[in-house]
């Protein structure tokens, strides 16, 4: 199908996202898709996460604008939803915590005054999930992250080169992160 391309929903743990701050566009145009390049070399525009919704806050002044925290075994993702994510905002307005949720969304970057880059997720979908799907997600994310680490250690391409140069990642740290995540789901 010419001209058709859908961004894959990249799997990454909260810790890896928290460690990521390399943002780029492939073209200079304003509306060209924005990507984050992570320490293990994932290039993500869309991501899929499944975890525990731990906190929802309406931080909008006047309009409804929700900030939600979603935990995985390695850390916490932040999700923002406002008027342009009406369904997600409605979900968050009524959501109870804690609850298992799955989010499909776009990675967005925000630069703080002191120059730090903070990543968050703008949801396309946020829905209740069950523990089974969360466990499947953790296992899948563990596998994908492991695959990326192995690739980064043994292969080379533009993404891997840039990630290694920017982050000088300590891969044993990410291996431990994956083990931690797997232990969280294998211990019940």
């Amino acid at each position, binding site marked *: *199908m010419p001209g*058709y391309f*859908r*961004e*894959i*929903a*990249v*799997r990454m743990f909260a810790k890896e996202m928290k460690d990521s701050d390399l943002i780029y566009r492939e073209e200079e145009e304003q509306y060209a898709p924005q990507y984050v390049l992570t320490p293990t070399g994932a290039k993500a525009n869309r991501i*899929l996460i*499944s975890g*525990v919704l*731990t*906190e929802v806050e309406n931080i909008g002044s006047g309009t409804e604008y929700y900030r939600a*925290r979603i*935990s995985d*075994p390695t850390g*916490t993702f932040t999700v923002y939803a406002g008027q342009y994510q009406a369904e997600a905002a409605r979900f968050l307005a009524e959501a109870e915590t*804690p609850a298992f*949720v*799955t*989010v*499909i969304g776009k990675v967005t970057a925000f630069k703080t005054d002191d120059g730090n880059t903070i990543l968050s997720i703008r949801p*396309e*979908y946020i*829905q209740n*999930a069950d523990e*089974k*799907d969360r*466990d*499947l*997600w*953790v*296992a*899948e994310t*563990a*596998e*994908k992250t*492991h*695959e990326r680490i192995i690739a980064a250690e043994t292969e080379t391409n533009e993404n891997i080169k840039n990630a290694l140069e920017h982050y000088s990642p300590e891969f*044993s740290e990410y*291996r*431990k992160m*994956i*083990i*931690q995540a*797997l*232990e*969280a*789901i*294998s*211990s*019940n």
Partner: protein
Amino acid sequence: MKDMNETELADSQESIHFKNTGASDLFDRAATIQKLLSENGAEISVEEIEAKLKEMTEIFKVPAAEAQRSVTNAFLKKYGISKTKVFAGKGSAVTKKIAEINAMAGMPDAWVNFTGKVIQIWDSTHESIAQAGLVGDETGIIKFTIWSSTEINPLELNKTYDFKNVVVKSWNDKASITLNKAATIAPAAEEIVTVKAGETILSDSKDRTNELRTVAELQQGGIWTDLKANIVQLFEKTHESIAFAGVLGDETGTMRFTVWKTSEIENIEAGKSYLLKNAITKEWNGNIAVEINRAGKVEEIDEEIVAKASVFELCGCAVDIQAGSGLIRRCPECNKVMTKGMCTEHGKVKGKYDLRIKAVFDDGSEAHETIINCELTQKLLNIELADAVMMATETLDPECINDIIKKEFIGKYYVVRGAKTDRYIIVENVERAEPIDANRISQLKDCLMEELDRKNDAEKIENGEIRNDEIRVGENRDIEKDIEEMEELKSSDFEEFEKILNSIEAEDEGIEEDEEIEIEEIKVI
């Protein structure tokens, strides 16, 4: 800053609540530590030890194995017990016959020496395991496992070796041999000629003759067969010990297949037809798959086999429901989907209603677009087409079905099977994915631990902390290193480990556990 800390705290409490750490697992670990300490004159309650382990695993999120090691060492240090002393006894290996080793089943881990002949080598599913198989002597046979971290040269089939400083482990009242870094293996001075219960199960069977069967005739596991089939699909990502995997078919049906690397088959292409010789069927979750292992052969054939249907299978998360899903109307003349009451060819017509789902399933490597027809949609949603029409009429919102579809599908994992066209998969079957397989998790965990270990060793050698030869040379070995190694093995969840071995065993030449026993019994009589 204060806010931040409170949130972090709340977070950690939250995840503790959801972590569901298996208490029994921690309790077992605590009991192991308690026993070790008690043997060395330090009486600490299991509860106290367990509390320490809990603190490590739940508050600090340290993996359980790591916690066990760290808690053990902390107590040993606190009570001034020398680690060397504690583990020295365990390092003195006694020479035994295999029957005697087998009799150690059910006892704590122990070190032994023995002489044995390698009678089977199994396909390893995991890179942490260098080799696994069976060794035997005139008194019996036993399973052995060599970890990749050992750097022991690969053993050869039918050769006799002296095994020194190996660990006897026991699980489910069966003993097995594990070789870690303390072990040494050398060719034996004298060859063992007769292995009890061994010889009959040795023969590699590349030359065996089988019946030629069709896919439809392969309805159960454990059938040795020949098969003529077309390769419908090759999976891109497989395991490092798998050469090819995918879906094959003939005019009677399709099934999954796996060609193990040990078969030494180098070329299989999708779309081509092959004669599979000495293939064996395996049952997985009620599905039958066919495998080619060391005994198997694959030959390309001129005959063109046409698979029953071009089936494509994926497991992924439903990430989107595309426009054109739900209740739609089709032109009565040409069956095309109408937009805004119009057919692109026949203009304004009175359309007939239809239900379908255009779902996107994402497996992390690819986003697959699929179309689910009316019949399947009705079943999945538990809504009849007529009801859907009524709901849309009542709410004046044809989109209301889409909301139901999204609620039902998005974020859930499915196994989808169907015919692949240029862009879409026309779905024939869609099912919720099976819960996560514990084996899959433990294998990955072992693999990561192993990689971390290897890295650790490499760094230590680089920093001059240990000499390379100390790891392997039996007499001069660094005892502390052994202790660590042993603890590592002890703490690796043994049940999971057994599962890995069993899965390896499952790829063996079809010799099932009970067959082995049968042979043994006959000999005894």
